């Protein structure tokens, strides 16, 4: 009984408080956010010759200076149409994308209609955030009207945003209200401190991109649609948490540092850092045994903060960051130029596919594609337990290329049955190890090998031998492929047998 009364009381109290604040906040900010309607058509990694069903979703767009609108990349990836609508209007107008950044999950739209921005007010994002404060969260309901929800900032941490390989700082946001994480604007006393990109209703908590990250992003010139202004440190580290490990690596008890556990090829750290280097200082900051430095405002933050979002300390794309290391038990200070995450070092794409359709090739009824986590995820939410354990293992341990390698795994996704490929009809998710005895590293390489000498009618040269990981051999007869491909294309109604 008592608890019921208490709940009712709290409910009323919060309803009242939001009623009071709603009017002021709503009035002040109704012209700084717009409703964005996005239609996307994602590629089908399993049946790559046809897209998935188009889907439409709504998002909150934030009005920027110079007649631009900020939205999340994750919401517009593979878009076919983007429309925006403002508070004062009932009509939607089309928008075009001028920037898509996968690392920061931030994208910028432009609207060609010059009148659209007439009564809109661009927002200014704060340079500093107080990370433990009550906030207002502005969202748009289905009708497009502004709702103000209460929330609280509870800290700053680092993680990979939904599509990025580069970890960036995020704000912890708690709220008891229903939020979507699709671009809600977060205000601390009328000052914009972040944009909400994730919300878990069951935990009453969400994550927001902090204003200082957004500022770094919107400061750029938006010359190219793709690309990022956020550098990537280029290595992974392990803590040296205990005295035993310190002693083993020749570190005295009072000195803290972390161990370089992996250096990503072609990255900032490539050629500068080595495995088993111990990082003592990074960007002039002392690094503790867990990999944290002490940020003057946000407290303990990971090393990555300095490299990925270190503008306030003078570190940005292209600038050099000083690193004090212990190598072979000797201290050294090196200077590492900061560069973006090297996409060519990814062997199995897992965060984003750079907005590209997955490349596929259908030859002799065999559907060839390159392995990606997106392909594996076509198995549904329990994909990890349904997928072949070898592919899962490769994805967990070998999704980055080793130094000097830039390949991908090419696999047969499935076989479109025909008399010519009899004996292989049940083959699926089988990696091609070699082609004519040589390691196969990309689907384009496979295509080139098939095309090479395709006019040969007889002799050894007309054959192409593929060895799969399980030891089977598949032989394609180049002289007959044209005919078979035409038959298969017609039978299965496939518009294009390859998409590159």
């Amino acid at each position, binding site marked *: 009984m008592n608890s019921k009364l208490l709940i009712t009381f709290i409910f009323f109290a919060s309803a009242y408080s939001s009623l009071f604040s709603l009017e002021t906040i709503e009035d002040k900010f109704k012209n700084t956010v717009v409703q964005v309607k996005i239609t996307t058509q994602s590629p089908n990694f399993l049946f790559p010759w046809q897209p998935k069903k188009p889907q439409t979703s709504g998002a909150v767009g934030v009005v920027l200076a110079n007649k631009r609108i900020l939205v999340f990349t994750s919401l517009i990836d593979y878009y076919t149409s983007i429309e925006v609508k403002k508070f004062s209007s009932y009509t939607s107008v089309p928008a075009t994308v001028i920037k898509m950044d996968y690392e920061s999950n931030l994208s910028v739209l432009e609207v060609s209609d010059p009148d659209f921005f007439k009564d809109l007010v661009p927002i200014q994002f704060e340079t500093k955030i107080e990370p433990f404060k009550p906030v207002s969260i502005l969202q748009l309901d289905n009708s497009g009207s502004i709702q103000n929800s209460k929330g609280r900032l509870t800290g700053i941490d680092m993680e990979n945003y939904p599509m990025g390989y580069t970890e960036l700082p995020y704000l912890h946001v708690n709220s008891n209200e229903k939020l979507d994480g699709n671009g809600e604007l977060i205000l601390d006393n009328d000052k914009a401190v972040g944009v909400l990109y994730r919300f878990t209703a069951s935990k009453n908590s969400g994550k927001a991109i902090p204003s200082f990250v957004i500022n770094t992003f919107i400061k750029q010139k938006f010359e190219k649609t793709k690309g990022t202004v956020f550098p990537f440190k280029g290595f992974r580290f392990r803590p040296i948490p*205990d005295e035993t490990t310190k002693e083993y690596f020749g570190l005295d008890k009072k000195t803290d540092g972390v161990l370089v556990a992996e250096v990503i090829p072609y990255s900032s750290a490539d050629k500068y850092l080595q495995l088993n280097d111990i990082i003592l200082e990074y960007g002039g900051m002392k690094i503790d045994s867990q990999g944290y430095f002490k940020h003057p405002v946000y407290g303990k933050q990971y090393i990555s903060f300095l490299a990925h979002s270190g503008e306030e300390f003078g570190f940005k794309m292209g600038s050099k960051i000083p690193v004090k290391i212990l190598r072979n038990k000797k201290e050294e200070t090196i200077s590492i130029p900061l560069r973006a995450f090297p996409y060519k070092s990814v062997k199995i794409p897992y965060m984003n596919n750079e907005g590209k359709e997955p490349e596929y090739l259908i030859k002799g009824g065999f559907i060839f594609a390159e392995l990606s986590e997106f392909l594996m995820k076509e198995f549904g939410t329990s994909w990890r337990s349904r997928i072949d354990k070898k592919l899962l293992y490769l994805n967990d341990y070998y999704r980055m290329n080793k130094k000097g390698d830039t390949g991908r795994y090419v696999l047969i996704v499935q076989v479109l049955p025909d008399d010519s490929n009899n*004996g292989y009809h049940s083959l699926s998710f089988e990696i091609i190890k070699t082609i004519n005895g040589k390691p196969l590293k990309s689907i384009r390489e496979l295509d080139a090998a098939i095309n090479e000498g395709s006019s040969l009618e007889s002799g050894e040269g007309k054959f192409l031998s593929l060895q799969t990981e*399980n030891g089977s*051999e598949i*032989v394609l007869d180049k002289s007959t492929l044209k005919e078979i491909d035409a038959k298969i294309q017609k039978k299965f109604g496939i518009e294009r047998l390859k998409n590159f």
Partner: protein
Amino acid sequence: MKYILTFLFLFLPIVSVLSEQISDFDKVRKGVVQIRTYSQGLDAFSPWLTTGVRASGGTGFIIDKNKIMTNAHVISNAKYIQVQRYNQTTWYEVEILFVAHDCDLALLKAKDESFYEDSTSFELGAIPDLNSSITVVGYPIGGDKISVSRGIVSRKEQSTYAHSEVDSHLVIQVDAAINPGNSGGPAIQDNKVVGVAFQVASRGENIGYLIPTTVIKYFLKDIEDGKYDGYVELGVRTLNSFNNTLREFRKIPKDLNGVFVTKVLKGGSAEGFLKKNDLLLEIDGLPIGRNGTIVLDKDARIDFVEIVDNKHSGEQISFRIFRDGQLITVNFPAKRMDEFTYMRHKYDEPFDYFVLGGLVFQPISRDLLQEWNKNNETQGGSQFLYRFFYFIDDDLCKDVESDVILYRKLAHPINTNSDYFLNMVVESVNDIKIQNIKHFKEIVAKKDYSFVKIKFRDIDVPLILKKEDIEKADKEVQTIYKVGNK
């Protein structure tokens, strides 16, 4: 294979009974035995603990006057076993003579000869024909008394035996409602045993399986020398020879059928005798089809490995093969393949484990994998899973005898920072490659070092422990968790 669960069957009596059959049945029931087992298993996840004592029931039948045949799974992990026959009033204790976990059979003997008074001893028959009827007798759930049921032989094929979850032998599929408790009971045709009821399909109705007499006879012959050795393995992977392009590329004459060898496994009978890309044409004179089957009897074509399956260790296997444009004959002895042992469920023996500073290590095993799955740890276990399922096929077994995994920790200050290494396979200790858990224990026990550096596979950063800390922690862990190294 996962759909098949080990249970026992029961057929419902639906047949009009002739007087002759009545007297036949009176003989039958005198040879069928009810088995009561009290078992105590081990928990693979906490191998220093045992599960509670569990009572379960099954069926058996008398052969060779005073021996009782049943399923291995009826008496697995048993601490005490009793038997009773139709109209007997007391239970009799039995001893286990032989157990064959790879074909789910066991042979028992009552300690008191009076158990066998006025009993029937069964003879073994041949493999029954498709569509012929059989009678299954046993003691399934639903009552204490003997139960009889009848069914029809619906299929013969090779299938996985759920007891080990690895071994695959011939099975006879029958259509019958099946219930737990029938396990080990005889299937009878013309007064002879033609199969042992042993498992059911968990998907689909009325699909029950019998162990055929070929497998029973194999078991009985194997134990003639006083111990059970187990089945042999050919140890090859094959690909059908349907594809015309592949045939043309490999210059295979049109009239040749058979299957291609795609992989020769380490430790199998074929190692050193068959080669990748060999086309296997005949086995022991029987032609192999392009789909890999041979004619066993008039009822069904069956996978050619059935011929190897029926051989005992040392017996010759003869292949007619096409290799490098030549027709040749290759003969080699059948042998067991110990490499597969780790994949089988383990019974009757303790799990080997090793505790080091509260970190618990074990050899990779099916039981551990199963327990690990129960704990729902699907994240990050891919190395363990991959190495378990591909250990032989990807030749990982050429590098190491048996994988050792750090699968859990008993919390202690020494291992506070070790979570990163959980579910990883050990590669080396102090730069010495680890071959198995015994080797691991030996290396760690050496006195001439102050640190233990454990490197795990696929990650570069090692786990470092200090010898003196380990010694102290081991004592504390032993006291707190009641766990010691055996």
